[in-house]
């Protein structure tokens, strides 16, 4: 690298660093001279897709971001919402897709570490982790290696830092073969009067570096995440960062201890683009200059250049602006936790970032144009290919066989093999563990408040109709929170798409955001934080590249004033099992169509946002007044899968009536019509009356009780058989 550091800076080098000719022209005009090697490095990472959001920013601005309960929306390290009692929930989801393909364990582990830092840097103690994972075809030999590494990485990091991993989702599809998605979400809780922001202030104030030492790992990681993989993607392993959850745990405790004092002016973690982005963003947001002397940066390796230190993505590091009179108090805290603590610079009034190393000025860049003149693109869009219309359906297997196949298929099989490797109880506040309810429920310590947390997206809907799919992802998150009795408050989004330079991918992106925005507005469910991951493509040996399915993953957060009111899937004996919401039997893009007929045809099910809200508000009210005893939203696989999941979650079985639906059985039982809930109540007749008054379609499905699931045919599938089929997939794939 030091040999490279000698290289002449010119347009060719800029292109190697990922800048276009036009972008390099802008660099020259901002600088008024040829930039130094280090300066070019800083421009290239700050203007990378990953850091600058240059292809997405114009569209992200259209999303609704405010509500009376939103304290900080996008623009801070994470979103902040009011959860009552003077407390705030702070949360965000972020991708670590590219590193997780190259090196699954460390890619996933550092993904968890990075999102944790985004949350505790704002003053919150992290209370829950979730994730949204997408893997390739289970039959692809690479998939097993990637699943194994990612699951170990998520667990290895989260378990060690002592933050429970309480929820998540997993899909498999060949489109993710060479580009898995690892989206990690962290939720923390802070006092509203102790929230820490990143805007630096106070000329002369010291700039402090804390945490791990800086090494050469992850240099240009942000640039790697901003381009497609080529055929030798795996050769990029040196650009993947290595995590140390033990240091992260110490860093959490040390930062929270410091945050209990009044020493901090501003704080930000060193994430993508490391010291460069944290210094540039903190000073830039505060409208001040920053002067750093890299001689004082704690270093793990010898002979590092300024370029390497500025672009390193070594993990578990934070940058803090302190009140000058509190430096020694802060140092004592970090000494106690045995972490590095170094004064590496101070704030200035120049408006420039100045990087000194070994007595020389290695970089001096005006901050305002670095931020303001960052590229923004409205790239060309093209309509995506429409799905094939559905052929007339002939059900070859019948309801019972189809159910058995569905609950054992990769997208619906039990995830216990995965979540049993994640510590879900540490902290002692987990009220509903993974699989027990539609959203995980975590109690806020020393209060009666509960947080309901979920991650959702249905990529196959998004591919068929990106706008509808974007709206559906938001609606499903809202529905999953509602199904526990919680009030949905806000979302974080993680927008995973292919190359924005492909017009049809850009079209999917724009459409998905339009759909998300519509749903967020209709459901009062604003976006408060998020992350965009583009260039998720796999290059085939013949040089063509395949985009992933459009995957706008939504992380939802809701609140229960009294956590004891939360309900889950488990039904007691002797309840009427009822279906709320309208059933039309839509099988387009359904799991049934894919698993039974091998087709991925038709339009996804319609989404009526007014009905969504009406049905959800109705159900939530009945959960909170105790009428609804168990609840499950109807999602992948339709009504019969939903009821079966309720049976598998508890002791009671269920006896189903023959539906008088006037539609074909497979359409009724496996159609994926939206905005529906299966609920267990003591008195189904009374529920039907209330539903009619509220204008919510309601029908009886059957009655809870018995040992297994009794189908309208009279055939009973034992609970043991259901569980055996349901839990077979992961061990068969992974433990062979």
């Amino acid at each position: 690298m030091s040999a490279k550091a000698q290289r002449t800076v010119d347009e060719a080098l800029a292109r190697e660093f990922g800048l276009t000719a036009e972008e390099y022209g802008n660099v020259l005009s901002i600088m008024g001279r040829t930039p130094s090697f280090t300066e070019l490095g800083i421009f290239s990472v700050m203007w990378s897709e990953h850091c600058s959001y240059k292809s997405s920013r114009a569209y992200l601005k259209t999303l609704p971001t405010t509500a009376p309960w939103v304290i900080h929306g996008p623009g801070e390290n994470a979103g902040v919402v009011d959860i009552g009692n003077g407390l705030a929930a702070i949360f965000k989801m972020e991708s670590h897709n590219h590193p997780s393909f190259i090196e699954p364990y460390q890619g996933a582990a550092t993904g968890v570490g990075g999102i944790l830092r985004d949350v505790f840097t704002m003053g919150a103690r992290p209370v829950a982790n979730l994730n949204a994972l997408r893997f390739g075809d289970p039959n692809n030999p690479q998939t097993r290696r990637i699943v194994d590494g990612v699951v170990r990485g998520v667990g290895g990091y989260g378990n060690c830092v002592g933050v429970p991993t309480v929820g998540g989702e997993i899909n498999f599809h060949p489109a993710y073969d060479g580009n898995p998605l690892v989206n990690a979400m962290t939720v923390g809780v802070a006092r509203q009067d102790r929230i820490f922001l990143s805007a630096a202030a106070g000329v002369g104030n010291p700039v402090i570096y804390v945490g791990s030492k800086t090494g050469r790992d992850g240099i240009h990681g942000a640039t790697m995440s901003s381009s497609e993989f080529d055929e030798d993607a795996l050769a990029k392993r040196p650009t993947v960062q290595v995590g140390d959850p033990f240091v992260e745990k110490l860093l959490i405790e040390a930062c929270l201890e410091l945050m209990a004092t009044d020493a901090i002016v501003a704080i930000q973690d060193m994430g993508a683009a490391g010291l460069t982005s944290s210094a540039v963003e903190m000073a830039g947001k505060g409208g001040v200059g920053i002067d750093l002397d890299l001689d004082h940066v704690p270093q793990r390796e010898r002979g590092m250049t300024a370029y390497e230190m500025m672009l390193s993505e070594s993990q578990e590091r934070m940058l803090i602006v302190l009140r000058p009179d509190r430096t020694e108090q802060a140092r004592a805290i970090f000494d106690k936790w045995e972490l590095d603590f170094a004064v590496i610079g101070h704030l200035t009034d120049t408006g420039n970032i100045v990087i000194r190393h070994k007595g020389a000025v290695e970089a001096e860049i005006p901050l305002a144009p670095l931020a303001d003149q960052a590229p923004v693109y409205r790239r060309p869009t093209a309509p995506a290919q429409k799905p094939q219309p559905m052929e007339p359906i002939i059900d070859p297997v019948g309801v019972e066989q189809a159910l058995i196949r569905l609950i054992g298929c990769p997208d619906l099989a039990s995830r216990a093999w995965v979540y049993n490797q994640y510590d879900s109880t540490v902290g002692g506040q987990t009220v509903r563990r993974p699989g027990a309810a539609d959203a995980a429920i975590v109690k806020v310590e020393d209060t009666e408040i509960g947080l309901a947390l979920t991650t959702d997206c249905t990529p196959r809907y998004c591919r068929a109709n990106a706008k509808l799919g974007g709206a559906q992802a938001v609606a499903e998150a809202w529905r999953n929170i509602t199904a526990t009795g919680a009030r949905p408050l806000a979302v974080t989004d993680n927008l995973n798409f292919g190359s924005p330079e492909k017009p049809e991918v850009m079209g999917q992106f724009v459409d998905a955001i339009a759909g998300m925005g519509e749903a967020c507005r209709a459901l009062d469910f604003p976006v408060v934080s998020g992350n965009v991951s583009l260039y998720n493509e796999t290059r085939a040996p013949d040089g063509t590249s395949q985009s992933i399915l459009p995957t706008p993953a939504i992380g939802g957060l809701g609140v229960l004033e009294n956590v004891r009111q939360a309900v889950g899937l488990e039904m007691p004996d002797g309840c009427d099992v009822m279906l709320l919401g309208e059933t039309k039997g839509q099988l387009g893009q359904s799991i049934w169509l894919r698993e039974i007929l091998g087709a991925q045809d038709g339009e996804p099910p319609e989404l009526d946002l007014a009905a969504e809200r009406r049905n959800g508000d109705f159900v939530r009210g009945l959960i909170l007044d105790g009428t609804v005893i168990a609840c499950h939203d109807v999602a992948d696989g339709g009504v019969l899968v939903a009821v079966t999941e309720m049976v598998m979650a508890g002791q009671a079985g269920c006896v189903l009536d023959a539906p008088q639906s006037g539609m074909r059985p497979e359409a009724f039982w496996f159609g994926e019509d939206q905005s529906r809930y299966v609920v267990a109540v003591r008195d189904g007749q009374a529920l039907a009356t209330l539903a009619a008054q509220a204008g919510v379609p309601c029908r009886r499905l059957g009655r809870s009780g018995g040992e297994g699931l009794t189908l309208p045919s009279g055939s009973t599938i034992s609970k043991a058989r259901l569980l055996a089929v349901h839990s077979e997939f992961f061990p068969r794939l992974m433990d062979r």
Partner: protein
Amino acid sequence: MKAAIVVFPGTNRERDMAIALRSVTGQAPAMVWHRDTALPAGLDLVVLPGGFSYGDYLRCGAMAAHAPIMAAIREFALKGGHILGVCNGFQILTEAQLLPGALLRNAALRFLSQDCFLRVERNDTPFTRHWSKGDVYRTPMAHGDGNYIAEAETIRMLEDTGRVAFRYVAENGRLDAGDPQLNPNGSMNAIAGVFSENLRICGMMPHPEDLVDPLMGGEDGKPLFTGLVEALVG
């Protein structure tokens, strides 16, 4: 009951343990830092909670066993003090040779976070007096290294002298150490917890402290704590 929880760098279940202790004593336990050299005066119970002390680097519990506070803990043990070690705390107690045996990687080589069932092997100790002998209780486990092992001679001694505290069993109490469904981490003789010779030190892998509130799914772990209060205060 005056209790103290020892916190090492990387300990992460100290808050869970504090909640469990507070729920039975009504008072917050003292938190003792690994670099301290003395325990608070007049303690009835010292708890070494779960987590990843020193990142589990070298070997789980190996570095914590040499932490500055350990001299005071040894002295407390020598004087007949009561010590509970859970999960990483159990690993530390074996590394410090306050309890026999060692904890290896789980037999399946994966971290396991799930409920398990423990059978109470004797109920005449401060840790088990609120159960009956043979009672089976549910408790969460969450560890990567819980596979209990000791030399054949040591195992025989533990069995012969009644120093096995808890075993992994089926919900109905059935024991089958060879069945990974029942003995999930592969421990010898399905041992989940052991006592010191004087029955005043108990180490165990699963987490009774995480099941002391019906809201979190049950109170199955609570008798351990109420029993300690009665034994040590009563």
